């Protein structure tokens, strides 16, 4: 171990750790985005909103925090509609606090904490600051349950046509036996995909989790945690700092898909049947009894998706719609662009999905100046482009409906085959809707519909008072321990303190890199780590002192001290590590948080106490010419301290 070059390793690790931890302490820039509709408000209202923000700002951040906000006291210009906040220790809770207190002014979901250069470099812009758990800063927890029944029914739609064809082959007397065999195999293959094993469910939940993750990142929500709860087929989302945000929930739950379905062939037998009936009712002056009116009422009363589905299924029975077709409502606005989007008529589409959202990517909303409306253009995947071309060449003259969620938003006629992999959707969209549709296409749809199983506002386990006092107390405790170590073991104590500091820094960097969310039990794990790290050094020094007392030369005493202590430290830490790993595997919530910090703490402790401390000790004894090593407290005098 007696080499200066070894010093490079801890030095390197320290530099890396500091780099990783830098964003926690650096000056950061936060963009607080102003809601668009604020600009169209009367000036007096704008003023109240702005002064509301700044009165509160003065109170909280004006004096001592060192945060600056630009532009001060006024609304930012419309072309750059955001306030720029600069300062240190900008936490998610603070960001949310600002947003939630100024809901009329701030567009919470668009706030953005600019990544520091380090985050850009290492993480491609992903945050590197230490995250605090719900128990430390409070927040919202939502548990979303996967609706697998709905999922399988959708799957059946996707395979509807193939199943019909396969059944045809099977019943066809003329078909060859091997063809029949093949069809039979394929059928059972498809059937088995409707059967959801727990494994399959997990896979689908994983997909859903990924999409939720995506949605949350693009929304720039603060430090969301998304977890799968296997036992309940559910996904748990924790949003620290957020206390009540209906908008977020809507984004999370949005199971809307985008898909293309062909409309029944011209002359629209079923559609006209329905339309005729409706007209007759209207003529009789019974508008209130028409199906479309009843359906609109359902929508207006927010009866929910299930009621709407049942209503449409009832229509299918009423008009004897064959199994290959499905009734949808065509949604549109009334005469003015400001009127609400409502079902206006019924259309009958093929049950089979012609092109699903998975075939589309990269959607962009744009304003169509020709039609004075918003539209969404998108790219098709190579596979999708091929499908789209085939579809449009085979079905010229037919209507191709675009279904968004369960709304048909347009059903243009296919005039020519479309090649090239780009397409657009125009409907009667508002800007918001165009953006939403574009998001649905770009991010992909949730594979399974999710319903809210539980939503809970969680207050922090500790109040701010306790956190402030607690942090201070722990810091003072640490300081006292370090002073005591120097007092008791002198140079050894100093080295122990040094390695303790390095230990905590490396541990913090490790946890940050792993995106660990710090909870109260996690802090307890760190405190235990510190205790065990000090203990390791104490064990070593006691051993070295024993060697010195037995009259060994200093350099030998140091080496033997470390060697004698090695297995004790190993045994103690390995046993604790095993217990920790068990806790991670078996435990939940608080136990897990504790165990993760403990386990990584053991790894760093082994490194700092067995390698780093030894390196420092041997260097000071062998190279820096220290001949007297006194490992006794100051008031014990100089009883030992042999020559090297």
């Amino acid at each position, binding site marked *: 171990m007696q080499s200066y070059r070894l010093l490079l390793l801890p030095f390197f690790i320290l530099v890396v750790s500091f780099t990783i931890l830098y964003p926690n302490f650096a000056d950061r820039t936060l963009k607080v985005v102003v809601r668009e509709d604020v600009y169209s408000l009367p000036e007096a209202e704008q003023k109240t909103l702005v002064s509301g923000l700044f009165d509160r700002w003065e*109170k909280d951040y004006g004096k001592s925090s060192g945060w600056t906000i630009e532009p001060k006291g006024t609304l930012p210009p419309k072309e750059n509609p955001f306030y720029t906040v600069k300062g240190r220790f900008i936490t998610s809770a603070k960001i949310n606090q600002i947003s939630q207190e100024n809901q009329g002014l701030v567009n919470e979901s668009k706030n953005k904490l600019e990544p520091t250069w380090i985050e850009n470099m290492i993480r491609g812009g992903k945050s590197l600051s230490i995250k605090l758990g719900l*128990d430390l800063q*409070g927040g919202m927890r939502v548990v979303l349950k996967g609706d697998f029944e709905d999922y399988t029914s959708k799957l059946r739609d996707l395979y509807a046509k193939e199943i019909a064809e396969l059944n045809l082959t099977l019943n066809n007397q003329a078909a060859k036996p091997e063809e029949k065999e093949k069809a039979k195999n394929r059928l059972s293959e498809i059937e088995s995909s409707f059967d959801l094993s727990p494994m399959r469910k997990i896979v689908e939940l994983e997909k859903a989790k990924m999409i939720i993750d995506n949605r949350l990142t693009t929304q720039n929500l603060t430090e969301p945690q998304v977890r799968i709860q296997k036992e309940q087929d559910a996904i748990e989302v924790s949003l620290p700092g957020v*206390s*009540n945000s209906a908008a977020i929930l809507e984004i999370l739950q949005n199971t809307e898909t985008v898909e293309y379905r062909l409309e029944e062939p011209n002359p629209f037998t079923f559609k006209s049947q329905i339309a005729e009936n409706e007209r007759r009712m209207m003529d009789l002056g019974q508008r209130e009894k028409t199906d479309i009116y009843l359906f609109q009422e359902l929508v207006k009363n927010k009866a929910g998706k299930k009621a709407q589905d049942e209503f449409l299924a009832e229509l299918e029975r009423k008009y004897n719609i064959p199994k290959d077709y499905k009734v949808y409502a065509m949604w549109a606005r009334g005469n003015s662009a400001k009127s609400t989007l409502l079902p206006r008529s019924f259309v009958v589409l093929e049950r089979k999905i012609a092109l699903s959202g998975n075939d589309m990517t990269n959607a962009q909303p744009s304003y169509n100046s020709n039609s004075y409306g918003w539209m969404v253009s998108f790219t098709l995947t190579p596979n999708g482009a091929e499908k789209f071309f085939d579809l449009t060449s085979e079905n010229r003259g037919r209507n191709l409906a675009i279904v968004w969620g369960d709304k048909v938003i347009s059903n243009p006629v296919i005039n020519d085959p479309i090649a090239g992999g780009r397409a657009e959707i125009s409907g009667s969209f508002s800007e918001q809707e165009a953006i939403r549709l574009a998001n649905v296409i770009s991010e992909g749809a949730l594979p399974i519909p999710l319903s809210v199983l539980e939503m*809970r*506002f*969680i*207050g*922090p*386990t*500790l*109040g*701010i*008072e*306790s*956190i*402030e*006092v*607690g942090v*201070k*107390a*722990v810091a*003072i*405790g*640490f300081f*006292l*321990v370090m002073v*005591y*170590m120097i007092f008791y073991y002198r140079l050894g104590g100093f080295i122990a303190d040094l390695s303790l500091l390095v230990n905590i820094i490396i541990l913090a960097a490790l946890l940050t890199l792993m995106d660990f969310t710090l909870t*109260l*039990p996690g802090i*307890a794990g760190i405190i*235990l780590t*510190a*205790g*065990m790290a*000090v*203990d390791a050094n*104490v*064990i070593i020094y*006691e051993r070295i002192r*024993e060697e010195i007392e037995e009259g060994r030369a200093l350099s030998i005493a140091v080496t033997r001290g470390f060697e004698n202590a090695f*297995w*004790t430290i190993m*045994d*103690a*830490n390995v*046993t*604790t590590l*095993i*217990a920790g790993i*068990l*806790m991670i595997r*078996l*435990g*939940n*919530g*608080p*136990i897990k948080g504790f165990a993760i910090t403990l386990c990584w703490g053991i790894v760093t402790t082994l490194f700092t106490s067995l390698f780093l401390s030894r390196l420092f000790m041997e260097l000071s004894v062998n190279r820096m010419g220290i001949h007297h090593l006194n490992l006794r407290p100051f008031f014990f005098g100089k009883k030992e301290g042999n020559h090297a």
Partner: protein
Amino acid sequence: MRNINFTKYKYFTLSFSFLAIVFGFVVTFSKYGGFAHSLDFNGGLRTVVELPKDKTRTDIETYFQSKQIEAVVILLEKEKNIYQLDIGLGSLPTIEALYKEIPEDKRESSTSAIDRFVQLLRFEFNLPKEKVLSADQVGAVVGGELTEVGITLLLTTLAIILLYLSIRSQFKFALASAIALVHDILMTLALIGFLQIKPSVPIIAALLTLLGYSINDKIVVFDRIRENAHGKDNLALSNIINVSIAQTLGRTINTSFTTMISVVAIIVGGAAELYDFAFVLLFGVIVGTYSSIYIAAPISEIYDQLRKKKFA
């Protein structure tokens, strides 16, 4: 080396511990009918309210105390005087009774406990509706399955420690460590029950921490015993134990002391909600240190004697 006869009092210390544990649990279950209830474990009512500026934490606490409602008051935001009030399920009958005392014209009829509590709060503190920021009837965060998971966890951990230590040293040391660990947990639980400390996330954290600390402590002492016993079969184990404990005493005192410094800093610092955490931890450190010396070591000796008798 100084020679202190640590094992001399083994029967006394073992019976002391045994009696203390039994006493703690008997009091817990006979006098209090079990461990204290808490929101984290049993669920309850949770409200977040913005109090008028002239009301302080003490005002609310005194109110709840005077009405004998068990409540945990947490300050969420200083500027706006926002508090979170957690009410355990045990206080529901009290709230029920107090709700009925509200004059008829000041209360709306309501059946849910949380509604009644909110009305009570609004009446007592004269709060307008919008100052009650949130009110939920919440379920347990850590309770329920935690007890089950906790026991599985403890048993598995003990089994692994037994195995690892048996391989690394000898079965008698492994067994003694495991028993001493159980002793520490039981002692602390007895204290928690005796003092009716509310089980919570911080308490779980404290229990886990003391478990880790205790494992560490026992292994350090036993490693020394094993080292000293190496190749000295003829020497009485009690001698070796006494010498080993004396040799590690400096380390034991130093480590316990430094750990206690941090813990005491939290207690003295006065973070109200961390008090229980630190208190349990402090007790745990003392018990852990005590049991390494006065429980674990003697048990290994007793086990050794029993075996020798059997094979003699």
